[in-house]
């Protein structure tokens, strides 16, 4: 969406930008994710704030050079606070024609294209469906172009190491990374160290890669003299003092679960089954056995959750993780965990659905599934992470609720959070408040053991099999309110249904705060999950323009914070942007009878700031000082402000709107994708 280029606030558009967006794009086999990852690390080491967005194809080895085989990695970094991976890249590095074709529409007008001419052969141009070489006609007229033969330069650079051409070309990504390091004035040392370590067993390959990296860097210095290439220095962001590292959502969930299990003083049992994009959690935890973690790759999703339930029954913290289709398979077992009231954490790394949907693309469309998606009245707490680093805290919170309330808890993350990286101020575990799990291991004088007697929180006792004298039976069949024996009687089922609901609704969750702005304004933009970043930036910009808009970001999806209804009602209008067709909006309407309106997007891509800015601007049209309305966005995504209310009336309020119908269902995803 070229127009997004105009949305950068004037204060950041000058000669010394406070943030830059770079996209590395190439063939799946070109190592773009690795390049992006290493560039991210060097960016973090330079003290910039950053956010990344890896965008890779679902196919493992898509045919070389094809449009659907393009893999991209976008990073937004700056000397100011960064919350999103950026709308439109300032710099596009295209390793082949297909990468150029797929990613060019996203590039900001006037942006810089760096292309490897060595790959712009007739064959590759055909595969990318280019009739003519775009480097030679006026396709790139709007942009600055730096096209040279990276392939040949790489081969030249690694010649001394005696590699064949095919092997030599594998270092192309390091050459490109070297150039990028030069462009942003970065130290090469950490990369040298990393390559030496990575190829410790093959020093030749390490040396070749280092040579390629250095050659790319040196090329930058030379090219500066003649072409459009300029070195840019982005200063470090002002951050709280402390120790930092970069972290992805999948890492943060894993570490948070480990921390949570330690705080609960429990061993952790993780049952998983391979699925994109959730497998990374299984991979991380499989390497953390010394923290009392057992990982079990089950035969299917159902077995993964059932084994986790079995482990919880035996006294461990059971955890399972998947993505939408796998979560669907686990549904019946979640009901079992609700029925037998055992702790369990279920992590859902959401992806585009339904069915197989978009395995490698992000979406927030499993909210109904999380809150409502089980047979019977099956209440379960649901928590949503807003960013990679937030996933750490959320995983601890999920563990706390699960073990304190004897309940399964769903932790929602998504493909974007799972793969995206951001700097994280490393917390000190000594600061966390422990919440040790309590096991019942004996009876008081004269006590009759009642496996379903509840404590003040509504939780039943947790008894480990092996405990003498407390043998008892549990099961998915309805059971007596205290003894746990099978009991179908009407009063008992009523009592148990009520008790399960009451326990979950009674889970203590913090009061909802306002993330940006104040309560009681004209517009609240209410989000959950990974939309936090773009909403924050859009609200920030709107506020800079003087609009009375606030950001509210909800972590506790179920139960909702007790004050949320009142907080929402304090605003004239409530806008709920979501990467689905309006699921959270429906929950808010249902729970609080507020006239929440939807802004929806289901293209598999995160929201762009510009899209949200435009949506916010709609509410301020006709208001002095409104600038946001100039932004061109995909109209179909916006709430239809022209239509009346459900009841046919028009509001007299300055912000008349209609929001009953989720309006994003027929989104032209192509337009949004760009």
């Amino acid at each position, binding site marked *: 969406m070229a127009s997004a280029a105009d949305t950068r606030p004037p204060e950041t558009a000058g000669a010394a930008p406070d943030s830059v967006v770079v996209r590395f794009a190439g063939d799946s086999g070109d190592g773009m994710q690795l390049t992006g990852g290493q560039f991210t690390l060097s960016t973090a080491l330079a003290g910039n704030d950053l956010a990344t967005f890896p965008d890779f194809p679902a196919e493992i080895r898509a045919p070389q050079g094809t449009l659907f085989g393009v893999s991209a990695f976008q990073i937004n970094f700056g000397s100011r606070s960064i919350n999103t991976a950026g709308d439109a890249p300032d710099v596009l590095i295209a390793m082949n024609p297909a990468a150029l074709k797929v990613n060019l529409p996203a590039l900001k007008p006037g942006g810089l294209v760096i292309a490897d001419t060595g790959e712009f052969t007739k064959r590759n141009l055909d595969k990318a469906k280019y009739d003519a070489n775009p480097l030679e006609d006026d396709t790139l007229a709007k942009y600055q172009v730096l096209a040279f033969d990276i392939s040949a330069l790489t081969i030249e650079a690694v010649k001394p190491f005696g590699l064949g051409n095919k092997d030599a070309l594998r270092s192309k990504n390091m050459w490109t990374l070297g150039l990028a390091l030069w462009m942003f004035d970065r130290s090469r040392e950490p990369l040298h160290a990393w390559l030496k370590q990575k190829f410790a067993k093959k020093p030749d390959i390490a040396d070749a890669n280092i040579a390629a990296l250095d050659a790319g860097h040196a090329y930058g210095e030379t090219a500066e003299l003649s072409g459009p290439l300029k070195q840019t220095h982005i200063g470090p962001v002002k951050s709280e003092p402390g120790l930092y590292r970069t972290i992805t959502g999948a890492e943060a969930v894993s570490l948070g679960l480990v921390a949570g299990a330690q705080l609960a003083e429990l061993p952790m049992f993780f049952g998983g089954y391979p699925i994109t994009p959730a497998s990374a959690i299984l991979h991380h935890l499989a390497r953390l056995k*010394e923290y009392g973690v057992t990982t079990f790759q089950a035969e299917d999703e159902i077995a993964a959750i059932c084994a986790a339930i079995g482990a919880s029954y035996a006294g461990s913290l059971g955890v399972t993780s998947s993505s939408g289709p796998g979560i669907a398979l686990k549904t019946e077992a979640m009901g079992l965990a609700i029925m037998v009231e055992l702790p369990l954490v279920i992590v859902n790394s959401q992806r585009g659905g339904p069915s197989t949907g978009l395995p490698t693309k992000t979406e927030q469309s499993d909210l109904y599934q999380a809150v409502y998606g089980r047979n019977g009245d099956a209440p379960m707490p649901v928590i949503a992470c807003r960013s990679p680093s937030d996933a750490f805290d959320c995983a601890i919170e999920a563990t706390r609720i699960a073990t304190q309330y004897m309940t399964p808890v769903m932790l929602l993350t998504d493909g974007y959070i799972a793969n995206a990286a951001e700097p994280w101020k490393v917390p000190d575990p000594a600061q966390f408040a422990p919440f040790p799990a309590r096991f019942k291991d004996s009876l008081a004088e004269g006590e009759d053991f009642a496996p379903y007697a509840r404590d003040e929180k509504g939780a039943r006792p947790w008894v480990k099999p092996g405990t003498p004298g407390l043998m008892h039976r549990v099961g998915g069949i309805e059971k007596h309110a205290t003894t746990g024996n099978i009991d179908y009687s009407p009063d008992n089922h009523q009592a148990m249904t009520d008790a399960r609901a009451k326990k979950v609704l009674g889970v203590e969750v913090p009061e909802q705060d306002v993330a940006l702005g104040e309560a009681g304004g004209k517009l609240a933009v209410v989000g959950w999950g990974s939309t936090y970043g773009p909403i924050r930036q859009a609200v920030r910009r709107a506020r800079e323009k003087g609009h009375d808009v606030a950001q509210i970001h909800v972590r506790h999806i179920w139960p909702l914070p007790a004050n949320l209804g009142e907080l929402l009602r304090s605003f004239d209008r409530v806008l709920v942007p979501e990467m689905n067709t309006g699921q959270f909006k429906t929950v808010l309407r249902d729970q609080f009878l507020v006239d929440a309106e939807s802004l929806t997007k289901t293209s598999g891509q995160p929201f762009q700031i510009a899209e949200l800015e435009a949506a916010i601007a709609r509410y301020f049209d006709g208001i002095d000082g409104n600038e946001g309305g100039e932004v061109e966005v995909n109209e179909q995504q916006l709430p239809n402000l022209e239509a009346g209310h459900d009841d046919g009336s028009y509001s007299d309020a300055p912000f008349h709107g209609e929001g009953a119908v989720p309006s994003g269902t027929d989104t032209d995803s192509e337009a949004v994708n760009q």
Partner: protein
Amino acid sequence: MNAPVKIETTLKDWETDQEVRWCPGCGDYAILKAVQRTLPKIGADPANTVFISGIGCSSRFPYYMETYGFHTIHGRAPAVATGVKLANPELDIWLVTGDGDGLSIGGNHMMHVLRRNVDMQIMLFNNEIYGLTKGQYSPTSRVGTPSPSTPRGSVDAPANPCAFALGSGARFVARGFDVSKKLPEVLIAAHEHRGAAFIEIFQNCIVYNKDVFDDFAAPKGAEDRQLWLEDGEPMLFGSEKTGGVKGLRLNTDTLSFEVVEVADGDWQAAGVRVHDTKNRVIAHLLAELPFGPYPMAMGVLYDDPAPTFSDGMIAEREAATKGKEANLAKLLQSGQTWTVDGTAQDPV
């Protein structure tokens, strides 16, 4: 099995106060008693014993055992039990399942609990019918079984539970039937086996599939129709009273068994095979012996222990954690870090 300390109990200690709700005359009653009789014999500890079941008539079993019990969901008991065992390898786990629960909806989990060799006793009550849902044919029903869902008789071939277990890599496979006096012996052998021990127990569903096993389980003529296997003993059945002692001889050309007459007790002369519970190929042949021309092979078909899943997991954990300390603060700081103190950054 895992009961290092033998506990003295009686049958009564294993009974719960729950009213048993199977149909009167159901074979499940006999199996329940056999189990309750077996556990004192092996010195099992009720507090350390866990019965885990799926869904179906048989899966009500845990409610009637004064032990820890988990009545899970349809077909998933092996998965739940795997988690229980990995979380606490000291527990002595008995899995109770049926032909529908264990071979239809839960066939996948059954295969994997067997191939992983998770240490537990797996009792599959085979009544060749869906009882709890009122009599539909099951994956072990014989071709032509009439049922509400197959009014003109079923047309699909049945699964053979013991052959399935062997094919899945089971290291212990045995057969018994509900009212058999020898059932406790089979259960004891299963319990002695370290690893997944699979026991197919023919069970009479008196309501929906009455006496379907009578052709070999009926007391009359049982000696001729049941071949009770014993390790190191010749494979003999029948008796002088009922028309002669017979035995199984292996035809090495066709790699199949033949029934031979044994004269004057001289089974060696008749070439009768001696049962070797460690011979997997023979176990396959015995599991698949077609009933009719041959007797039903009963008892322990195969028993050859192999490392269990929890042993493997424990060893793997020891190897993976050797020399490593669990320091959460350090873990959180792993990877490349940098400090912000207002001025300098120093990559670590």
